[in-house]
């Protein structure tokens, strides 16, 4: 280990993801234990963590367009929906009511992101001309247009109330739908999906980090802070706003594809306004504009209800005693958290983590 971990001898080292060995060590430890969890945890927890990983991918997407580039987007859930249905059509099984092509994951996963991104590019001429409240209203309209298409294109979505099955899990021609046997060891479908989600999360997380420390990320932030100055410095506003939206939609699409595959099926009513607002809440709670924030926010959003439920169930109190259901408690506390974070910690969970880290970095002289 180097004796002066904060002394950098090149510009690249200064902006590297893990500037010192301690950070590398903790990242590798975290990654290895994440993989290990997959083989010891129960199905319930595996699905829960998979869900959290995928929600954080979608939240990263929203964070790029709203947190980083400052363009409010109330329709992120629609792009998640577009990714979902792209994957379900390409990877799903055809039935009497819906179409499906049973393609490989390596085809439908990237395409889910790309199709969502293309639709993002398609609507960007409208979105990039507006900002602030007007943009918010237009994206609100996208939610309703999206919902309309989702419930009426029944050959794709199965129609409202019915829904359809998700994509099949075939990778490189191998069928993983009922698990896969290596020797005597059986890997469940959930475990495979968990590992895929972990891999995609690491890759796309790396993408976000790289974006932030590049010309493109700086241009996004410049547009967020002062668009007139950004334009005067040679940043093409239209191009960069459209790029931010496209990248955001790509993340949303990929997340949507894997989320649905984890749940096995999807109903078009899922992608309503509340679903889009949810991602905004996650980004705010996690820390808007930060790299790790959406990850924290997503884990908070997914694991928090599970913990509440666990507490309620283990407290031996019936619903009659509590007067409200665990779901209601969860929503009330979740709403409360959004308000508290906006008032007290605009940088969200990331901000708290940042201060904790700095506290322990300087320990025992932290004052």
């Amino acid at each position, binding site marked *: 280990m180097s004796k002066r971990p904060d002394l950098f001898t090149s510009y*690249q080292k200064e902006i590297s993801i893990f500037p010192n060995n301690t950070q590398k060590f903790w990242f590798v430890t975290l990654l290895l234990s994440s993989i290990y969890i997959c083989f010891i945890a129960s199905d319930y927890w595996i699905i829960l963590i998979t869900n959290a990983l995928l929600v954080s991918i979608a939240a990263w997407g929203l964070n790029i367009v709203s947190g980083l580039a400052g363009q409010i987007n109330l329709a992120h859930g629609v792009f998640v929906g577009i990714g979902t249905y792209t994957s379900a059509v390409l990877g799903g099984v055809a039935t009497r009511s819906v179409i499906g092509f049973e393609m490989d994951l390596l085809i439908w996963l990237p395409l889910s992101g790309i199709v969502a991104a293309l639709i993002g590019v398609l609507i960007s001429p409208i979105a990039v001309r507006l900002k602030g409240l007007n943009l918010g209203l237009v994206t609100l309209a996208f939610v309703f247009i999206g919902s309309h298409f989702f419930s009426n294109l029944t050959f794709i979505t199965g129609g409202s109330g019915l829904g359809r099955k998700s994509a099949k899990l075939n990778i490189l021609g191998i069928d993983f739908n009922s698990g896969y046997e290596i020797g005597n060891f059986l890997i469940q479908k959930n475990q495979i999906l968990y590992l895929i989600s972990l891999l995609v999360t690491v890759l796309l997380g790396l993408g976000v980090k790289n974006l932030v420390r590049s010309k493109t990320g700086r241009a996004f932030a410049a547009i967020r802070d002062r668009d007139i100055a950004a334009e*005067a410095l040679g940043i093409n506003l239209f191009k960069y706003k459209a790029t931010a939206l496209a990248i955001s939609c790509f993340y949303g699409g990929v997340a949507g594809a894997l989320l649905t595959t984890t749940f096995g099926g999807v109903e078009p009513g899922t992608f309503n306004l509340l679903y889009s607002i949810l991602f905004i809440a996650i980004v705010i709670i996690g820390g808007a504009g930060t790299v790790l924030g959406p990850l924290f926010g997503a884990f908070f959003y997914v694991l928090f209800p599970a913990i509440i439920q666990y507490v309620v169930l283990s407290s031996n109190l019936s619903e009659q005693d509590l007067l409200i259901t665990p779901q209601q408690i969860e929503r009330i506390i979740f709403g409360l958290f959004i308000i508290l974070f906006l008032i007290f910690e605009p940088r969200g969970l990331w901000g708290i983590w940042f201060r904790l880290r700095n506290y322990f970095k300087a320990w025992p002289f932290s004052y």
Partner: protein
Amino acid sequence: MKNAVEFVNVSLNFGGVKALDDISFEVKEGSLFSIIGPNGAGKTSVFNCVNGIYRPTSGEIKIYDQEIADLKPDKIANLGVSRTFQNIELFENMTTLDNILIGAHKHINYGPVTSMLRTKKVKNQEDEARDIAEDVIDFLEIEEHRFSYILSLPYGIQKRIELGRALAMKPKVLLLDEPAAGMNNEETEDIARFILDIHEELGVTIILVDHDMNMVMDIATDVIVMDFGKKLFSGSPSDAAKDQSVIEAYLGVSD
């Protein structure tokens, strides 16, 4: 000598208000050109027209003989025009270094997908951009503020960083909108020294708007005086101080 910027009968109206009224002037390449005049004379409007933020109602603006009427601000920036703003327009949630790197935006050419993959090309170009930024930081003597967030820095330093951000573009023409506004004598002298250095060492054509007459008279090579959107005078700084219409604009007319 070539004209860096040329205004030909430019007028700019906002409803009934004539912000610029039939303005014509030429800025020779390599000059330190100053626009002075009382508040509301239209000085900043001239900048906003050169910069593409406003479109003139009539007339032509040329930058190195290229008509810019149809160009957006980012295209004009790519012609080599950079500017600072009267009220600081820095990116407040970023560090000094990031602000200056954004100034170097047009010297980096890789796409968004490449930037996410962080290829060798990205790394090399980021290093080059950092070199440009470090040169600027060195030039303006703001080394100790490199990693400070803009919000935490004093006003005088922020003004200097904004100058740095404009310089990182390696402009051919630099528009400075009141660089010495709100500064004490010492800070004004610092800024004047930097402006002269930029003009002489880097050979940048500078258009300067400021209210500090002492500074303008000391450093400008050419000057125009404006009042109520009209051009009153153009010539050398020493002649401007003697011109009757200029004195009237600043001090009023005696009955």
